[in-house]
């Protein structure tokens, strides 16, 4: 592959409190209360999205905030890559209750349309006026990683110049079922939220460089970091929700002077929490090399490398 570079020009993270800036972030030690987004949608999007689901609202707010923070108007040939692990779990649940015995009634058109897994990416594109490539990736823990990797590779390949990449997931009730669905322990916080990055091949005005998204084996991480690291880089590890404390400590030990940043206290656990974690770095951007590491339930690992520029 060529040595094309991919840059981050804007970012926005929407947390389970409806938080989108540093002063609004909350630390959660238990599940966040239900999040009502209607007013925030009106404020950010400019009009209510009354036919849209909660998941669509999360994506709409996150993407619009990201684009509002961009220093230039995003062109309509910007692509959209959206990762979502569980997708529309609430609407699908509602449809089951509407349609399947013992409840049988007709499916609600709004619910049915919202339950299409690509509806959030459609709203993101429609609100932004983006008429280019539009992909929704759903691959459990790596839904966002894959969305980011496909965007990165397409940008490096040269056909595409800019893309909006995001991750979004919602929680659901009852809690016990949600935890089982995404394989969480009872002591983990059931989170939700969205994170978006606007990427471009243009270096000028960039706030960060996306170094890559790679599959990793534990013993390969320090070699990858050596290739990315510059002498004066501070290294910050962002452990994903599948890493155990022991694994995180082992990675930190293998990377001398690495600091660990636990963003999960702000957003809880969900498949695409990585999108929140990376985007929230731009609440208070500090130059350095940031590494997000996570595993899937099958033990595969993926690593995202990002350098926040001075």
């Amino acid at each position: 592959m060529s040595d094309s570079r991919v840059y981050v020009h804007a970012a926005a993270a929407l947390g389970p409190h409806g938080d989108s800036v540093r002063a609004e972030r909350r630390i959660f030690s238990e599940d966040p209360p239900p999040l009502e987004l209607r007013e925030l949608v009106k404020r950010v999007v400019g009009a209510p999205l009354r036919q849209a689901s909660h998941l669509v609202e999360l994506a709409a707010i996150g993407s619009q905030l990201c684009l509002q923070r961009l220093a230039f108007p995003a062109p309509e040939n910007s692509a959209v890559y959206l990762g979502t692990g569980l997708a529309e779990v609430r609407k699908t649940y509602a449809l089951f209750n509407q349609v399947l015995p013992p409840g049988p009634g007709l499916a609600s058109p709004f619910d049915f349309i919202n339950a299409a897994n690509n509806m959030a990416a459609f709203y993101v594109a429609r609100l932004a006026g983006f008429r280019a490539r539009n992909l929704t990736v759903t691959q459990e823990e790596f839904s966002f990683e894959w969305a980011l990797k496909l965007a990165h590779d397409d940008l490096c390949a040269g056909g595409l110049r800019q893309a909006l990449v995001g991750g979004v997931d919602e929680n659901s009730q009852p809690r016990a079922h949600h935890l089982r669905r995404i394989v969480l322990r009872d002591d983990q916080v059931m989170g939700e939220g969205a994170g978006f990055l606007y990427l471009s091949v243009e270096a000028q005005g960039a706030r960060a460089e996306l170094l890559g998204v790679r599959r990793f084996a534990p013993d390969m991480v320090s070699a990858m970091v050596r290739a990315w690291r510059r002498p004066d880089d501070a290294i910050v590890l962002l452990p994903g929700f599948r890493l155990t404390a022991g694994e995180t400590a082992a990675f930190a030990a293998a990377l001398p002077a690495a600091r660990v940043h636990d963003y999960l206290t702000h957003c809880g656990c969900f498949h695409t929490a990585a999108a929140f974690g990376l985007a929230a770095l731009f609440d208070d951007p500090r130059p350095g090399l940031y590494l997000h590491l996570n595993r899937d339930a099958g033990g595969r690992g993926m690593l995202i490398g990002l350098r926040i520029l001075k």
Partner: protein
Amino acid sequence: MALAIAIRGLGLVSCYGLGVARAVDGLRAGRTGIAPLTQFETPFREPVQVNPFDHTPFPPGEACAPAILETAVHEALAGAGCEAPALRDAALVIGTGSYLFAAEAEYRLRRTGSGGPPTPALRAPGYVALRVAADLGIDGPVLTLSTACSSSANALLVAADLIRRGQVERALVIGVEGLSAVALSGFHSLLLLDPQGCRPFDADRRGMQLGEAVAAVLLEGEHSKTSRDTGASLLGGANLCDIHHVTSAAPDGSAMRAVMEMALADAGLAPADIALIKAHGTGSPDNDAAEAAAMRALFGDDLPPFTGLKRYLGHTLGACGAVELAALLGCLRAGFVPPTAGFSAPDPELRIAPLVESRPAPTGAAMLNFFGFGGNYASLIVSHE
């Protein structure tokens, strides 16, 4: 990109049974796989036509999903003269609208036991891909794309890119969709089901007809050595978003035209190089009208013959990209183009009409179009020998 990708093997589970050959036999005989729905109850009273396949060879409940996928994969591998170990470093890219059918199968299975209604499983859609990868020993990239009716067409494009960029040598693409009470009721509530089954581009068309199918497509770089070959290649393609409306296309077909043009440009071809179009052709009044407008605008007076497959196979939603590719390539290899089942009366407003009689397979490239909800459109360009 413009680097052709070889289509080495095809596998299909459809209303015609197991295998591409059975579907080709059905299409050659002009036999559609249409039948009244009997598999499960729906909450509405009107009869509905579907294209079901026989589920009895597969395990009950949600375990059916990986089993059906692997059946299609084994056919694709056998056709390519390839053994499962060759997949070790391959990518697995699945395209699906949803696994509602599997969640519903699990729900019905558990409901037959004692107690109240079970909680729907509703697992994250990626679980099937991980399971299939583990069963087949695939250790390469694994991902699932879900972009409504263009899902598996997009999966083919993403897999081709992984090969073109040298990230993998081969990729297994699977399109999967099963019949679902939720989906049937949803489309019924949207007034998008034609009670007589779909009639693509017909003056009296009233909507779609849902089907279920799974197709597997083994892709490789042209230089990769495999003992056998389908003789077909993926020359290029494109995907874009029509932001006109959640469920309806820009009526002038402008976004559909744009995706076809982008696909041609990606393949390095001009409209005149296209010898055949496999239309999306759902039979829905507005969608077919926009698609006809797009074909007229792009091809003008030199519109190549076009055909639609959805009365034969049903609209298999997220699976239709891989399913209709497999069925069409099977027919072309057998030497014919199937006519458009369900079409009889030309619609004067469309000003164009699809194939009504079988034709010999043309030489030259074919275009396959897929237009989904949420404005997600994909166009593929393939060649066959």
